[in-house]
């Protein structure tokens, strides 16, 4: 810790910085915890998708306070969440209904509360399409205005989306697991009318490979999915073996020391899976490297190594694990998860190679998802923003403090926040979510 950082984090330093307007960041709610206050259900039109989904989640709901007059009405006590069923929203006039629901809720929401808007993306007509897009602007703005760690999320559905499709996603968003997901929008489609459960151990008895599992976000992924019941195959490069073994032993998993850029890496992983004989539910392609330099100083070697580890290796491994002939390949109904980055989505000075690889991951999952839907394999990516890790701890203090505060939650995320989002996507109940890139960035100021 530098002298400057020590001064800043000391008691007098904090008092001064508070006076100067730098507030202590809000405390986020994490884990499988529901909002403390009431969950309020608002509806624009007569849709019942959200009401049915909340019933599946076992949540009781309360009626909304609607802003009708000149006096801004309020809730008696803080509410935990407002979930708006806007699946029947088609007109500009109906946006007023939404405003009237949001205004009291934004005022009366608890710290780390949730605003969730569920809408239809497949609407006909120019006005309806325009209004649908208006929701995106509303969601992003509400996220920026909310205080105290409360977040806003927009969930797109289609006409055939049913409550069991939406259940795992709405549960994730309302619970503390989505602590650092803010101002985001993603899609929930339809994946067949099968019975799905919302449980605390959705990955019980399922094997998941996590690459780059020795430390940081990868170790958090291993711990989080083990908590959710997964049998973890933890992979990292041989020189990271000591830390990898500690993680594997902590989660009761298996450590595989493997350089994923080796040509036979996919085969080695398939052999480990086949030997265990329990199938393969998911692969989390978390391993990644940075070789930062301004483009004018980026040579072929720096370029290649980042693209090789962050993108090419996972393509090769996927090829092997998706081959139906591979003993130890990915099960039908399985999950592939990539790690993109806000750097890839927004660009970042000095990271052309990294941005290329991470935007490439986003492109990859979007391309793979429809091709694998016939096998019920979902493919998604998570794009972390500023996450407090050993790696980001090396960024100089002032710069780090600026990065931390450059998002709507005014703090860095934790590795577990990324891990929770991945665990949600791995959940068998998240079958209707595919081809998505979910940012875990606290609504970082940069990025799409």
């Amino acid at each position, binding site marked *: 810790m530098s002298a400057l950082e020590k001064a800043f984090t000391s008691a007098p330093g904090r008092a001064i910085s508070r006076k100067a307007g730098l507030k202590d960041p809000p405390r986020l709610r994490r884990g499988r915890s529901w909002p403390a206050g009431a969950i309020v259900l608002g509806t624009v039109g007569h849709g019942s998708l959200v009401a049915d989904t909340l019933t599946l989640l076992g949540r009781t709901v309360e009626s909304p306070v609607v802003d009708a007059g000149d006096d801004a009405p309020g809730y008696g006590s803080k509410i935990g969440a407002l979930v708006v069923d806007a699946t029947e929203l088609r007109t500009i006039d109906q946006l007023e209904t939404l405003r009237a629901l949001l205004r009291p809720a934004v005022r009366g929401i608890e710290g780390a509360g949730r605003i969730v808007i569920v809408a239809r993306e497949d609407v006909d007509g120019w006005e309806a399409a325009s209004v649908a897009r208006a929701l995106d602007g509303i969601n992003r703005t509400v996220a920026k205005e909310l205080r105290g760690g409360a977040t806003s999320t927009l969930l797109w559905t289609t006409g055939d989306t049913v409550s069991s499709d939406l259940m795992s996603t709405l549960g994730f968003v309302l619970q503390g697991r989505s602590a650092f997901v803010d101002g985001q929008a993603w899609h929930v489609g339809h994946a067949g009318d099968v019975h799905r459960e919302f449980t605390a151990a959705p990955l019980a008895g399922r094997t998941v490979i996590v690459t780059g599992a020795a430390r940081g976000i990868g170790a958090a992924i291993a711990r989080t999915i083990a908590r959710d019941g997964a049998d973890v195959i933890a992979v990292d490069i*041989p020189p*990271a073996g000591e830390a990898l*073994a500690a993680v594997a032993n902590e989660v009761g*998993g298996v*450590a595989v020391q493997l350089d994923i850029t080796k040509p036979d890496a996919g085969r080695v992983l398939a052999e480990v899976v086949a*030997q265990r*004989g329990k199938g393969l539910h998911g692969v989390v392609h978390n391993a990644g490297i940075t070789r930062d330099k301004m483009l004018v100083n980026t040579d072929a070697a720096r370029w290649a190594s980042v693209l090789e580890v962050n993108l090419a290796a996972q393509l090769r491994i996927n090829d092997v694990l998706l081959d139906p002939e591979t003993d130890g390949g990915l099960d039908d109904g399985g999950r592939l998860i990539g790690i993109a980055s806000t750097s890839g989505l927004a660009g970042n000075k000095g990271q052309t190679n990294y941005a290329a690889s991470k935007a490439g991951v986003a492109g990859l999952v979007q391309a793979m998802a429809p091709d694998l839907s016939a096998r019920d394999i979902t493919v998604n990516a998570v794009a972390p923003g500023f996450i407090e890790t050993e790696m980001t701890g090396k960024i100089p203090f002032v710069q780090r403090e600026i990065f931390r505060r450059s998002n709507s939650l005014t703090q860095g995320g934790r590795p577990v926040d990324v891990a929770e989002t991945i665990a949600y996507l791995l959940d068998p109940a998240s079958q209707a979510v595919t081809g998505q890139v979910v940012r875990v960035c606290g609504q970082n100021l940069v990025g799409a």
Partner: protein
Amino acid sequence: MSHNAVVIGGNRIPFAKSNGPYSEATNHDMLTAALDGLVARFGLSGMRMGEVAAGAVLKHPSDFNLTREAVLSSALSADTPACDLQQACGTGLETTIYIANKIALGQIEVGISGGVDSTSDAPITLSDPLRRTLLKASSARSFPDRVKPFTKVRPRHLSPKAPSVTEPRTGLSMGEHQALTTESWGITREEQDAIAAASHHKLAQAWESGFFDDLVTPYLGVARDAILRPDTSVEKLAKLKPVFGGPQGTMTAGNSTALSDGAATVLIASEEWAAEHRQPVLARIIDAEVAAVDHPGGADLLLGPVAATGRMLARQGLSIGDFDLVEIHEAFASTVATTLKAWADEDYCRGLGLDGAIGTIDPSVLNVTGSSLAAGHPFAATGARIVPTLAKLLQERGKGSRGLISMCAAGGQGVVAILEAV
């Protein structure tokens, strides 16, 4: 003998030179690290093993229960029993035989063998007169009686005794013994340097190819064997001065093993257990033998394994040509050279009570991924380094491939074993 004992795999930490990167690590630390890497590789976290047997040659008195304490520090179930065994440089193989025998007899289904040694954290003891003085003083009842023994302490008694690998009955170090053997068997400097250079080159190649990715777990930031010199050559080795056998000697620091720190472990189970727990199986442990020679009576100290090999092969009805791979522990390059010569020597073998010469081997089957000269030789760990290495090599060569391990040990002893790919 109703069960087959099979090697599932192994794990060791990279070996390093004495007073190098592991100078602050104890035997307990290193054995725990080796166990934890094994647990992680095979997903054994929280599991109870039938037994863990390991040992160390250089051992602190406080480490009287070294292996059990390491088990308690590891990720294994605390209900796993353990014992310490010691068979000098053959310890890691002797513990493997012990666990394999228990499995074969059905006494346990799965166990771990291993060994560890630190020449950095070696125990240093008091001189005998000073130790006796302290014991006498501590048992005295009155103050004068307590002080009196110290009047007999002389300055020379105050210097501590460092551990040495000196044979108690001959007063010669292992290197000095081997120098006698080297000379009497006519082993040249060139032969020894060639063995040493080849050991480094073969080990380096194995590391380069990723062979050790599933046999070694890094420790304290060391990811590869730290003694290994990939760029050494016969020419470079030829420049070193002799350290054993006087000024005209042929044994140098380059063709003798370095004092080393490290730990190694082997996971062994019955075939039934391995199948039931869906663990990979590399090789079956077929047979083993320990022999000794009368080195105080003039026999070559480190040729104990020759008689052991001869008797074991006769019992199994095998000849030396039946082995696809042979591992001869490189205590010194000349140990390997004299062992090979002794195997081929009709008279020497008959002198040991064998029916005739053991025979010769194709040099290409010997120590194919290098051995102790390049890897280092933490005494008790070496056997547990060789067993999984050989088991993996045999498995790569296909079902039924046979391998022989020959290890010399202090006291004129030798430990040998046969593995066969499953």
